[in-house]
């Protein structure tokens, strides 16, 4: 039975490699350097998914303008010189006046208001409630101008034109590494798409900049601040990445969101949205020759106005130790252990992805071990994320019952040890390869999924990766896995986040817990000693306690699982005694000062 199935599987794998789909779009490049991938496909009649991508994202930003890639993405829906207003000339005059006053307010705020803030006179330099009379005057001028401009603004005309022509699912997305714009259109509307997209690339109005600023701030609240773990995740990311520009959120820091000026946004647009920096992608029911003609007429008019953007320069520095980040939130207790992995396209990427597959799913190692066998996790997963310029591999889990976050960490370390020391079986590896082969087809099944894969791989360096990557997965060996696990999963170069429920009661370990956790033959040996040890702890000073705890910590990985509860208990008792000494000390020193 087993052998028979194994044979089927191996056959399956060999045959799928040979019949694996080659993704072969038609490539077309304009004189201005704008590149296109055309993928006619008649499986979904009458419909086209079309869009374009720029390899620009938050990695291209710097302090002061964090989030500007995403903000600009929003503003590119605000129309153009001609779309979105009933009076192009009047509108331009308003925009210029607004730009001027905004610049003045920004200069004033970052000078006067920031100084008041540093001196502790106000809590937030950007809050209108803290306006000085001068600033209040400027703000009133700005509001008056905006209200007047609204009279000639055709709100959301860009969207209305598309909607009225059968466009649907119009949207855009910004990541650390790229910004992509897309829409589904009926197959007779390719010229409309060409008109609209080339127009916003040619002369975007960046209209209604200030109202949109507040929309993005609400988006930040919705996505980050009002979610269970959003604010903590943001800081953990920051800590993990150290120098690399992956160390700030795509949506940007709040102070920067308040500060953008039109000049900053426009400069950014002109740098990163030049035609030579863009790739257009069209997938679905269309004729290639017609598409090429439309592309010539419409996108051919775009000009490169600035020098080509300089590539991202700053690399992340290696982690030199273990970082630990603890926080409380309205959330499930959870742990994440994260390592640096590799950038997109590195030959180890497929190996790391296979490792994640080995760990995930109902037949994956994490479910089998942490959820099923040990019963310490409610859920557990691993993932490799290879981004454009750097990557990370993470393990995350939520505990179950009495299990602690440290129990989960320890269980993870055991999994790593297995990966490092024992070759994965042929069948286990073949299972992953079989799934990967079938998934290759599944992911090409609909227009929009195909669109995103083409656009993103192209932004990262070439769509050909869609064809080479599945082959690389099939070539991963058990030795690769051991080598890669040893290379990237290092205890002295990792970051660990431990989140606990706010106001949650800390569960103290009792002597009985310890007793229950020990194998029977050890109870008689250890328990009497434990009491003596506790008595010894009572005599220790703060320094000794700290040393003792550090010692246990440093040996954490060598402690056998059945002794874990015991060591946790001793640590806990040390901490309790240390807290007592320290709080006494604090009181007496306060007394001394008083």
């Amino acid at each position, binding site marked *: 039975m087993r052998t028979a199935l194994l044979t089927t*599987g191996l056959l399956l794998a060999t045959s799928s490699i040979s019949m694996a789909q080659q993704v072969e779009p038609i490539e077309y490049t304009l004189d201005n350097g704008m590149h296109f991938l055309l993928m006619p496909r008649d499986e979904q009649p009458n419909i086209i998914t079309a869009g374009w991508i720029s390899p620009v994202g938050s990695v291209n930003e710097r302090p002061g303008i964090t989030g500007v890639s995403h903000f600009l993405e929003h503003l590119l829906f605000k129309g153009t010189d001609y779309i979105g207003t009933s009076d192009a000339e009047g509108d331009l005059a308003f925009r210029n006046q607004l730009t001027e006053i905004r610049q003045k307010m920004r200069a004033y705020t970052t000078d006067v208001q920031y100084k008041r803030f540093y001196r502790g006179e106000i809590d937030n330099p950007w809050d209108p409630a803290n306006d000085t009379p001068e600033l209040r005057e400027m703000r009133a001028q700005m509001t008056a101008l905006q209200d007047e401009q609204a009279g000639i603004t055709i709100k959301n005309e860009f969207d209305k034109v598309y909607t*009225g022509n059968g466009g649907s699912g119009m949207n855009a997305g910004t990541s650390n590494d790229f910004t992509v714009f897309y829409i589904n259109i009926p197959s007779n509307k390719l010229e409309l798409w060409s008109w609209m997209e080339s127009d916003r690339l040619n002369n975007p109005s960046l209209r209604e900049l200030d109202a949109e600023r507040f929309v993005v701030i609400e988006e930040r609240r919705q996505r980050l601040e009002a979610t*269970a773990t959003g604010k903590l995740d943001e800081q953990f990311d920051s800590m993990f990445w150290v120098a690399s520009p992956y160390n700030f959120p795509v949506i940007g820091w709040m102070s920067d969101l308040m500060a953008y000026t039109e000049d900053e946004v426009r400069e950014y647009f002109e740098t990163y949205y030049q035609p030579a920096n863009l790739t257009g992608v069209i997938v679905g029911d269309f004729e290639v020759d017609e598409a090429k003609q439309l592309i010539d007429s419409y996108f051919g008019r775009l000009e490169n106005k600035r020098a080509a953007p300089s590539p991202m320069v700053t690399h992340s520095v290696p982690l030199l130790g273990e970082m630990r980040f603890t926080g409380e939130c309205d959330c499930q207790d959870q742990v994440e252990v994260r390592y640096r992995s590799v950038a997109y396209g590195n030959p180890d990427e497929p190996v790391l992805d296979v490792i994640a597959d080995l760990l995930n799913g109902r037949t994956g190692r994490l479910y089998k071990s942490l959820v099923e066998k040990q019963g310490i996790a409610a859920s557990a997963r691993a993932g490799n994320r290879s981004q454009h310029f750097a990557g990370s591999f993470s393990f995350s889990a939520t505990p179950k019952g009495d299990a602690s976050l440290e129990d989960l960490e320890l269980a993870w370390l055991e999994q790593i040890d297995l990966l490092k020391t024992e070759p994965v079986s042929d069948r286990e590896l073949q299972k992953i390869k079989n799934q990967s082969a079938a998934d290759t087809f599944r992911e090409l099944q609909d227009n929009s999924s195909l669109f995103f894969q083409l656009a993103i791989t192209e932004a990262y360096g070439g769509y050909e990766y869609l064809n080479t990557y599945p082959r690389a997965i099939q070539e991963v060996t058990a030795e690769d896995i051991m080598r890669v696990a040893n290379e990237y999963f290092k205890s002295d170069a990792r970051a660990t986040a431990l989140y606990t429920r706010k106001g949650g009661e800390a569960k103290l370990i009792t002597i009985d817990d310890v007793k229950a956790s020990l194998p029977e033959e050890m109870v008689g040996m250890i328990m009497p000693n434990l009491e003596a040890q506790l008595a010894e702890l009572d005599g220790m000073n703060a320094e000794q306690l700290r040393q003792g705890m550090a010692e246990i910590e440093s040996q954490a990985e060598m402690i056998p699982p059945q002794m874990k509860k015991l060591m946790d208990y001793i640590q806990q008792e040390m901490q309790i005694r240390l807290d007592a000494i320290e709080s006494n000390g604090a009181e007496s020193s306060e007394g001394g000062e008083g």
Partner: protein
Amino acid sequence: MNHAMKSTLIAVVMATGSTSFAADIPSHPSEIQFRELQFTPPEAQDFRYELSSGVPVFIAESNEFPLVTISMSFKGGEYLVPADKAGLAGLTGGMIRSGGSSTMGPEELDEEFDFLAANVSTSIGDRNARASINCLTSNLDSAFDLFMDMLRNPRFDESRFAIRKDQILESFESRNDAGVQIAIRELGFLMWGEDHFEGRQPTRESIESITIDDMKALHEQIFHPGNLMIAVTGDVEPNEILAFLESKLSDWEVGQISPDIPKPTKTYEPGVYYYEKDQPQVQVLIGHRGIERDDPNAIDVEVMNQILGGSGFTSRITNTVRTQEGLAYTAGSTFSNRVEYPGMFLSYFFTKTPTTALATRLVFDEIGKIQTEEATTEEIEIIQNSLIETFPRNFESKSAMMNLFISDERTGRPADYWKNYRDRVRSVTASDVQEAALNYLNPEQAVIMVVGPVDEIKAGNADSEADANRIATMAEFFNGESTILPQRDPESLKPVDSE
């Protein structure tokens, strides 16, 4: 045949089109001439087959990839479950997949499916249950036998059951973590009641009370050919796959057909309801009873709602609350229609605390405006064109199409519905839209469900620098009266004493 015709059509257009490309680009997109798009909606009968047992099978062949999907839909769901066992349907649905079969324990079965790269899923929703398998066509024979054994003889393995129960109970701990989840839950309780399946929630007690026998009974009630319709898409020849299914399913006995879905009996009190939560953004849901799917005015209501808040940036609520005032990232409205009884109208937005009242007022103003003034011709035409031009998307993929046909047959949608749909949309007039707004929007019957810091929300932005017509407090709704809902224990969902 069809394809050849289309290519010819494009060739003709291309020939005439090339001269216009040489000319200047039109100065506005409204000046672009588009070729007519011919689209005849596919008809269910062209894809419909039957097994000798009478089970309908909808088949659409597609040879682009060597994959096949067989998706089974069964009548029956959480509505069959008594309130004190709330959550039984979802739990059973998942356990059929994860609990093993008659010949294999859960681990072995999972291994086989994974090794064969077969994506297998089972679920039981509120109204219908589903079981599907997607795999390489070459593996169908072996994978399908495993699949059917699991589906007909689920083992409901005890240790997997214990794990799943624990996971569900763990997840209940976070039911008060996200404000939007609280808002949806409390609105459901208020409008549908804590017993009807639309509104109710599983609790620690209901999940703990569920036994393997409960799951077996529900499984037996739902999963048999009497409740079954099948959709097949992918790399298979219709008659071959039909014969395949015939041979594989011939000995499956018909059980009792699931009863119809019960109507809710609860009435509700309109008003402002708060749930206290310390968070930097407030979630507001404004809901009232909606309409039945087959209501003769359903399309008028659809057009009306698209203008009001259902078409993203094009709609008025999004335009006002988001674009103009910058008060929210997410804002809009929707009608969720039900086949058996009126569904729900819902408007929603998330905003910072002090502007909750202002944004609420703007939404009510928009509702008032669409009731008292006729929408413009331009607004109506944009929505009509949108619904007509996006119409083919209903039939976008073969699997979407087959599932639509199944749903239509199950719910008795009139046979000419899709054929007449575009004409019906085109016939909507400005007065139809206003009528729909007057008859189907009832702000005085609304529940305004608000989650956030209550005292600050009530005060609104009265002490801010905003200009006078942008000052608002919650006192302006329902005469300033409101109810503060009790805090609930996240696991039992029972009210807890406030601190």
